[in-house]
């Protein structure tokens, strides 16, 4: 038998109190000469035994009550089978603490699962320090953004304790415990300690356990390949004969054992309704919310921009439903802006915020390389593109379009006088051929995150394009062109068919009526491509309705930029030999706007990323004196990045890597660019956000966890052999002893009353 609070056993010494009182009472008596002594003696002789029995029984009860009470509050327990007592020899205690942000959930200001985990670790360390003569070892793994050892077994306990004190809160990661447990299993395999105890402290939130606790997909074959590696890791640990594994639930529903769902409302996203933001053009921001709980609620969303006066909206959400809050804003200034959406705090704060780093441009600059520039202006491609994208160009008065179109002749591109990288989008409108310089310039523009649209017409030199842009598969074009195809203007035209309706390039065609219009446009001629040579990364957004279902619009990414290949580009209505009717105003506006807006954004937005991701972007020159300022939640000061930046083709450089994005918020990177003209200071703003799925506070029942992971039990506190803490699985005798004490007290009271009544004068 062991005790949870052995020090309280000292209370058993209080058994002496009734004895002392009894002795004192015997001292405090009156003396009285008595004549009828003989009768008194006779009476005493007859009653002596009974009196002794009664007095002794009462004294015994009164002495026993403090002993029982001391035993009860010392909380004795019997150890059950399973976990072995820590025997002689070094025991290595390895603790894995779930550092995901769901561990920060606090109900009504109580302890969070993370705090409970820390408290258990503290108790374990106390116990180990008390048993220092056994030379116990302690290791701690934090399963956070990147599972890592905070304490290794070779550290002394005092240093380990100091390290643990640094753990103040969980990270904002949606931790997957798979990697953490895999690391621990390897560590255990390599360990040579006589005895190992491995503890996993987690809130059992379903997301953290990955596939192990999800139902198998329908029709999926059963087999070891579907087993979660958490289970594999546990089995590996279990196979080591001197190792024991303990899973400890520190979650909010731990004591209930049956699992359940805890209410939580979160912001799942913050986006624009347009691909790109332009100054002075109103834009709608949409904050998406999700009610993960089981009760309807109202949520107030606050959006603040660059720390200015916030805007607020209230959204009503049914249980399990999603909702949106829309905010319309217009930016006066160009450049990077901070947008911060937040909810009033609930039990889980980490997912009540969303951050967005937004680049607002003056206007989207389009470089239009017009292959028909030397003809009648009305018959040029510029006429089509400019009238659609930038109708106010050269008209005087205010600029109303988000696009600013500059038209050049192909020679300027081929000669290098214009650099596509200086523009947001470069459109090759029926350009007959390109040279190497132009091809390289386009590549550089794409690598810099700019967009390129190649609209083919009747001038295109197929062989030249294949040579320069396909470049045997190394160029920006993900296919080889074959020949001109189609019946021609006099034949039966084909029409476009939308192959990828959800593609961003067709964002303007989300309404069915617009799609119908698009799919009714006549196409007479196009350039056919070699389908067998189409890169797997390329996406065919539009096809034609010909027999071969020829690709019409192909999307591809190259470097950080996006490129579209329009195999039958629009031409002026004044050209009778035009290949199609995409110039029709009904469709031209939406199509050209939509394609260019999509192209205006880089393939990947490096400035908006997730917790745990590396902050990375390409820079036009070599960066120096790079420093990162982390969000306030992180608690760290500025961090210099000393690693050498990696050079990229075209004179660009990669930002030195910074991977410590453990907390959501804004990360500001200050640097100096080493330009030819001198040092130029730049400040880059990155927004890092949490994974909303970690905010689904759904906890499985302990039975399900046991079955899924193949373990015998799920604990809610450290096992007794580690700390002497009462394990619910062990037989705790405290409540029984308390009941026994109560019964004894009642019995003593009844006995004392009985004796008093017997002895009192009638």
């Amino acid at each position, binding site marked *: 038998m062991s005790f949870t609070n052995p020090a309280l056993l000292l209370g058993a010494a209080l058994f002496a109190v009734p004895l002392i009182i009894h002795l004192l009472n015997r001292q405090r008596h009156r003396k009285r000469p008595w*004549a009828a002594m003989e009768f*008194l003696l006779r009476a*005493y002789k007859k009653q002596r035994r009974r009196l002794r029995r009664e007095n002794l029984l009462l004294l015994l009860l009164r002495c026993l009550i403090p002993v029982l009470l001391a035993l009860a509050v010392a909380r004795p327990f019997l150890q059950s089978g399973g976990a072995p007592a820590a025997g002689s020899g070094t025991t290595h205690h390895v603790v894995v603490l779930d550092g995901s942000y769901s561990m920060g959930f606090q109900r009504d200001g109580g302890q969070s699962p993370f705090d409970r985990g820390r408290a258990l670790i503290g108790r374990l360390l106390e116990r180990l320090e008390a048993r220092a003569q056994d030379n116990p070892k302690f290791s701690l793994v934090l399963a956070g953004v990147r599972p890592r050892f905070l304490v290794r077994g070779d550290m002394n306990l005092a240093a380990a304790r100091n390290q643990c004190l640094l753990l103040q809160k969980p990270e904002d990661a949606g931790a997957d415990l798979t990697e953490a447990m895999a690391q621990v299993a390897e560590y255990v395999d390599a360990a040579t300690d006589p005895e190992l105890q491995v503890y996993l402290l987690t809130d059992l939130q379903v997301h953290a356990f990955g596939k192990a606790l999800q139902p198998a997909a329908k029709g999926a074959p059963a087999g070891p390949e579907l087993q979660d590696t958490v289970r594999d890791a546990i089995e590996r640990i279990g196979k080591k004969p001197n190792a024991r594994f303990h899973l400890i639930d520190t979650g909010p529903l731990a004591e209930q054992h049956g699992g359940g769902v805890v209410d939580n409302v979160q912001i799942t996203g913050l986006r624009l309704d347009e691909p790109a933001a332009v100054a002075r053009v109103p834009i709608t921001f949409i904050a998406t919310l999700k009610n993960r709980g089981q009760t309807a609620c109202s949520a107030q969303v606050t959006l603040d921009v660059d720390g200015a006066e916030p805007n607020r909206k209230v959204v009503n959400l049914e249980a399990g439903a999603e909702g949106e809050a829309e905010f319309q804003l217009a930016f006066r200034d160009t450049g990077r802006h901070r947008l911060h959406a937040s909810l009033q705090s609930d039990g889980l704060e980490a997912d009540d915020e969303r951050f967005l780093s937004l680049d607002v441009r003056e206007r989207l600059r389009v470089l239009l390389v017009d292959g028909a520039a030397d003809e009648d202006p009305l018959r040029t491609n510029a006429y089509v593109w400019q009238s659609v994208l930038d109708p106010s160009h050269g008209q005087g008065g205010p600029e109303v379009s988000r696009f600013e179109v500059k038209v050049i002749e192909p020679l300027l591109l081929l000669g290098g006088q214009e650099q596509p990288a200086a523009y947001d989008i470069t459109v090759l409108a029926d350009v007959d051929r390109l040279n190497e310089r132009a091809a390289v310039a386009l590549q550089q523009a794409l690598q810099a995150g700019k967009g390129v649209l190649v609209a083919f017409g009747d001038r295109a030199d197929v062989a030249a394009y294949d040579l320069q842009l396909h470049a045997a598969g190394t160029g920006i074009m993900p296919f080889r062109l074959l020949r001109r195809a189609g019946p021609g203007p006099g034949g039966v035209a084909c029409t476009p068919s939308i192959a990828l309706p959800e593609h961003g390039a067709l964002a303007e065609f989300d309404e069915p009526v617009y799609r119908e219009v698009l799919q009714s446009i006549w196409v007479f001629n196009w350039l056919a491509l070699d389908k067998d040579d189409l890169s797997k990364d390329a996406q065919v957004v539009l096809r034609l309705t010909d027999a071969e279902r020829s690709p019409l619009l192909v999307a591809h990414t190259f470097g950080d930029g996006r490129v579209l290949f329009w195999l039958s580009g629009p031409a002026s209505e004044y050209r009778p030999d035009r290949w199609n009717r995409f110039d029709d105003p009904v469709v031209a506006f939406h199509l050209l706007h939509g394609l260019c807006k999509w192209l205006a954004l880089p393939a990947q937005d490096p400035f908006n990323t997730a917790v745990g991701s590396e902050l990375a972007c390409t820079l036009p020159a070599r960066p120096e004196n790079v420093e990162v300022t982390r969000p306030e939640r992180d608690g760290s000061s500025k961090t210099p990045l000393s690693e050498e930046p990696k050079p990229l083709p075209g004179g660009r450089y990669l930002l030195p890597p910074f991977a410590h994005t453990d907390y959501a918020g804004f990360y500001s990177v200050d640097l100096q660019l080493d330009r030819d003209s001198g040092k130029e200071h730049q400040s880059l703003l990155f927004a890092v956000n949490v994974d909303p799925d970690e905010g689904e506070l759904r906890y499985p029942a302990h039975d399900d966890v046991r079955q899924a992971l193949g373990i015998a039990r799920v604990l809610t506190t450290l096992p007794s052999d580690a700390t002497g803490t009462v394990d619910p699985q062990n037989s705790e005798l405290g409540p029984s002893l308390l009941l026994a004490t109560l019964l004894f007290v009642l019995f003593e009271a009844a006995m004392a009353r009985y004796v008093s009544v017997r002895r009192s004068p009638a």
Partner: protein
Amino acid sequence: MTDTANVNYLDPKVLNKVARLELRARLVVEGFVTGMHRSPYRGFSVEFAQHREYQPGDDLRYLDWKIWGKSDRLVIKQFEEETNLRAHLFLDQSESMNYGHEGGLAKFDYAATACAALAYLIQQQADAVGLTLFDDKVVRQVPPSNTRANLGTIFQLLEQAKARNQKTKIGAVLHELASHLRQRGMVLVFSDLFDDADEVIKGLREIAQRGHDVVVFHVLDHDEVEFPFERMTLFQGLEQLPELLVDPQSLRDAYLAEIGGFQEQIRKGCLAHKIDYVKVINSTPLDVVLSSYLTARAARRKRRK
């Protein structure tokens, strides 16, 4: 006497304040006699028997004034039986009689007062009265006489007597006294009788068998009868008995059963041998004692007729 007219001298608490025994005795008797006129005992009288010549010292209340008026002779009225009664007062002065509850008379003082009052009453009735003090043996004796001088001697003896640190051996003493009593009379025993009950009864029986009228005044203290103690008490035994530290409440019932049984045994023993038994608590007014004596005396006279 007007200042004492409203005081009940039969109450032992009041008597406790009167130091002199003789005075005490007189107050008791006078209080009793006064009460007699209003009491159920009214109508009781002593019958006139004959005259005798006056002796100096005789009570002038019994002088027959008519005869003096007629014949100038001083004669005393003698009442029936008055010359026949010889009363023996036996008073136990063993250590156990020394006990008394707080605020009350000790048993001995109570018994001594009762003896004094009775002696006074008896002498007033021109009967002879004697006194014997005893503990484990006879200590002092005053032979019965009806003279005032004898009464004075009795008072003096009672005044000076104190309970002695001797055990009670009343059985043996009564046996001894029985053999010394020559003329038949009344024997009034004042004792707590704390001795072997059989020996006590045996002794009393011996006296009764010799033709004496015996009245036993079983003098007990209020505490001995009620045992009202509550706190832990060290009872220190008198008459060389051991002491006992005990919670009185735990023994109360058993003790009362013992002492009650003892009293009952004595009473039955007395009843069986036609001995009058009067249980007297030292908190009881003394008229009980006096009226008990007078009842016994009247009964005796009836038997002699």
